[in-house]
């Protein structure tokens, strides 16, 4: 087994297969890593209800086996959770999680050699509050009646407890302001090849649909993770056929193109930009949540954006935001966490991307995709 290889696999444990989606491969791989002492701890989502789960770090294999799997309506981010904890850890990660973890690694807050990242293909996540409203307004079903949810062929399908399925196309939902979070719509990292091993159901064909996971090994750590799970008897794999590989590539391409379309749709040029930013920021209450939650910020409590900003400043624009705009110009990964937690609903991710898009394009630098040093810290600019 080596880097670059692809497999289709599933859990050997029947209850895990039943509970987890797509054959329970990810859950089993994490459990095996913990069981065989490849890592000391694992991050899992502890399910609270159909729309809510909380990420926890655990060393208990049972917690892992009983975890929620992935939920589309739990847009949490794991990079800050494991930062500065110095753990030998394995965790599942969406594209944006992986990017945050790598950026924390560059800033010495996470030791990447000790971090096993199981990447998850991700077409986007939804805000739980928006999802609830969407269920009532668009689907006309009570959130409490929802039993399961999946995305198939561009449709978001909810299954209710009476066994009925309710499907609406994602396009229609997003037209009405529901559906995925805005940052997910224009995200173009659908298959996280920056992780150690990328997993997902794209490319699973025939009888295996819904019962297996397609994996691509991206690093030596990825090899270790999968080999360990196979050796421990937790997981079985087989080689995918060429058709399956091609299908996966096609889905990835379609999703990425859709992301680019959204990007062009959202980031139209603005004329009076200073006024635009001032208007968007005028309700800011200085809570600092956007910085606390930001997965690429590793400054801690003492940071330029907060130390040079005072609530007694009567500036036309706060120093806090100016410094954040500058720092995020090369660091923003567009994960959308800041918009999620803003108490006055400032579309922060959109604002940060306004600065990050041109800078990252000009410098040909994509944060969190590899170990390249942020260009701001280069000694000499490569012209």
């Amino acid at each position, binding site marked *: 087994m080596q880097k670059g290889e692809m497999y289709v696999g599933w859990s050997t444990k029947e209850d895990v297969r039943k509970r987890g989606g797509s054959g329970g491969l990810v859950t089993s791989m994490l459990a095996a890593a913990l069981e065989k002492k490849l890592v000391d701890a694992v991050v899992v989502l502890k399910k609270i209800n159909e729309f809510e789960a909380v990420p926890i770090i655990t060393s208990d294999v049972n917690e892992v086996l009983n975890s929620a799997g992935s939920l589309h309506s739990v847009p949490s981010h794991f990079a800050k959770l494991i930062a500065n904890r110095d753990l030998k850890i394995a965790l599942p990660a969406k594209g944006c999680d992986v990017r945050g973890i790598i950026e924390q690694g560059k800033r010495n807050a996470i030791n990447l050699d000790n971090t096993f990242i199981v990447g998850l293909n991700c077409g986007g996540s939804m805000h739980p509050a928006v999802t609830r409203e969407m269920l009532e307004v668009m689907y006309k079903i009570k959130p409490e009646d929802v039993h399961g949810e999946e995305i198939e062929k561009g449709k978001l399908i909810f299954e209710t407890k009476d066994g009925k399925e309710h499907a609406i196309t994602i396009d229609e939902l997003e037209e009405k302001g529901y559906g995925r979070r805005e940052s997910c719509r224009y995200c173009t990292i659908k298959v996280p090849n920056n992780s150690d091993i990328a997993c997902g159901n794209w490319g699973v064909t025939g009888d295996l649909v819904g019962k297996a996971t397609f994996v691509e090994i991206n690093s030596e750590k990825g090899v270790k993770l999968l080999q360990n799970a196979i050796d421990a008897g937790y997981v079985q794999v087989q080689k995918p056929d060429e058709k399956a590989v091609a299908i996966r590539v096609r889905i990835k391409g379609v999703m990425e193109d859709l992301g680019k379309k959204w990007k062009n749709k959202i980031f139209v040029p*603005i004329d*009076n*930009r*200073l*006024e*635009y*930013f001032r208007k968007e920021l005028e309700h800011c209450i200085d809570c600092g949540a956007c910085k606390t939650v930001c997965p690429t910020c590793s400054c801690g409590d003492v940071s*330029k954006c907060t130390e*040079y900003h005072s609530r007694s*400043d*009567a*500036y*036309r*624009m706060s*120093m806090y935001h*100016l*410094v954040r*705009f*500058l720092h995020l*110009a*090369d660091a923003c990964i567009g994960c959308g966490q800041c918009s999620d937690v803003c108490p006055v609903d400032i579309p922060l991710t959109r604002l940060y991307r*306004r*600065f990050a898009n*041109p*800078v990252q394009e*000009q410098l040909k630098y994509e944060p969190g995709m590899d170990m390249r040093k942020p*260009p*701001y810290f*280069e*000694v*000499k*600019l490569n012209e």
Partner: protein
Amino acid sequence: MTEESAASADAKTNGWEPKMVVFCCNWCSYGGADSAGMGRFQQPASARIIRVMCSGRIDPLHVFNAFLEGADAVLVTGCHIGDCHYVNGNDKTKIKYRYLENVVHELGIEKERLQLNWISASEGERFANFIRDVTAQIKKLGPSPLKPEGVA
């Protein structure tokens, strides 16, 4: 017309003089400013010089602060590339400046309000011309939109 553009139209006709913060490095551009005076090259009274040991010391934060406190323009000056007295300080200036330029532009501040120039200690005339040119550009633009209320 917005209140601000009305103010700037007013400023243009009333002999308004912009205030510009000019960061000069100790070894080159500050010397350039000095030679400009010694050589009696005419220049407007718009510049407020802040001397730093090296242009590499200038943090984007300083530039933001100048704007927020009411500067109509901020000029970053230093030694010519290759002439830095600390080997490569001005290379770092250039890296930071490129970021800063992008951010300030995206923010919607006119590009004339933030400028970078390399000036050696002997280039007094170049310094005076630079100040004169920028002052003329800023006079056309009017006061900075970031100028706080009550600051002239």
